[in-house]
């Protein structure tokens, strides 16, 4: 009698169809990398459902790690993530801290310098638009005294309130 590997495989799988092993497959597979207990491995192989499940489960290891990383990233608040990021940077290179200090100092200088220039512009702007300050204190009064010609002292004929009465 001649059999193929597929037929042998079917015969063996059928013979293990009704067996039920009591090994916790998840616990076993998570420890098996660090030294498996071959007795437990054989018990799993003697139970077709457990053997097929274990084969499938072994592929979920990387998947679980990626999913867990994403869940943890989404659960941590932003401030904690920034702190963790900075803490991760520190031990990697001795140059990081001086570089960060230099960047901080440079940013501070640029910021302060920008503040100073803005305040000078604001003072100049106010001075340019100030009518009182722009007028000369000396000179011909008729030509230069714009305040006196502002219309505050208009003749009484044009003041309707002044001319009207209540009777």
């Amino acid at each position: 009698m001649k059999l193929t590997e597929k037929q042998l495989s079917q015969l063996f799988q059928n013979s293990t169809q009704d067996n039920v092993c009591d090994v916790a497959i998840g616990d076993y597979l998570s420890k098996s990398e660090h030294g498996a207990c071959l007795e437990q491995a054989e018990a799993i192989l003697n139970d077709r459902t457990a053997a097929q499940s274990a084969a499938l489960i072994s592929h979920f290891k990387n998947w679980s790690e990626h999913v867990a990383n994403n869940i943890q990233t989404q659960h941590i608040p932003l401030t904690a993530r920034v702190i963790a990021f900075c803490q991760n940077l520190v031990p990697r290179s001795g140059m990081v801290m001086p570089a960060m200090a230099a960047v901080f100092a440079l940013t501070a200088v640029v910021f302060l310098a920008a503040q100073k220039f803005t305040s000078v512009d604001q003072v100049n702007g106010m001075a340019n638009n100030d009518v009182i300050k722009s007028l000369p204190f000396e000179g011909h009064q008729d030509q230069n005294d714009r305040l006196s010609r502002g219309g505050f002292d208009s003749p009484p004929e044009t003041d309707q309130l002044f001319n009207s009465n209540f009777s």
Partner: protein
Amino acid sequence: MNKQQLTILFQQHQHLIDKAVFSQQINITGVTIDDVYQEVSIRVLKILNNDREIENLASYIYRITANVIVDLARANSRHNQETPLPDHRDETDSYQPELNSEAPQPDSRLLNKELQQTLLAAIEALPNDRRIAAKMRLQGYSVKEMMALTGWPYYKAENLSKRSMIALKEQLEIMGIDYEAN
């Protein structure tokens, strides 16, 4: 995080398990990847909502997934065993078996039973590592899956996978069965 977001997250990493999901070797009838996602998301959400401190979330999710797959596979296996097959129908049933039915005849069943016993005896006669390797190969395991189950390094798993089948062939020949190696 809600169930839908978690399922989307699972799907984003599905490329890591596509090889297993679409494998022809792994045969767990009645268990779909959607069933696994559904159950795993429910159990993971329970943990996240409890605000319980978990030391190793990846390992926790891995074990939850393993339990879900085993539970679904066992439930499906029980269901198949409990569902009556055409052979078990009572006489009042109008079902008539086809003349050229492919159901195994009693003599071929007996032959299969004898073959099974011979095969199991041949496997049990192998040394420890080769016996386990032969069982993994006959259950359809790839080398990577063998490594995961036994913790063997790649070359050991690959080597034992081949040598175990050669040893099984020799053992079967002694018992009067010729096996054509792949």
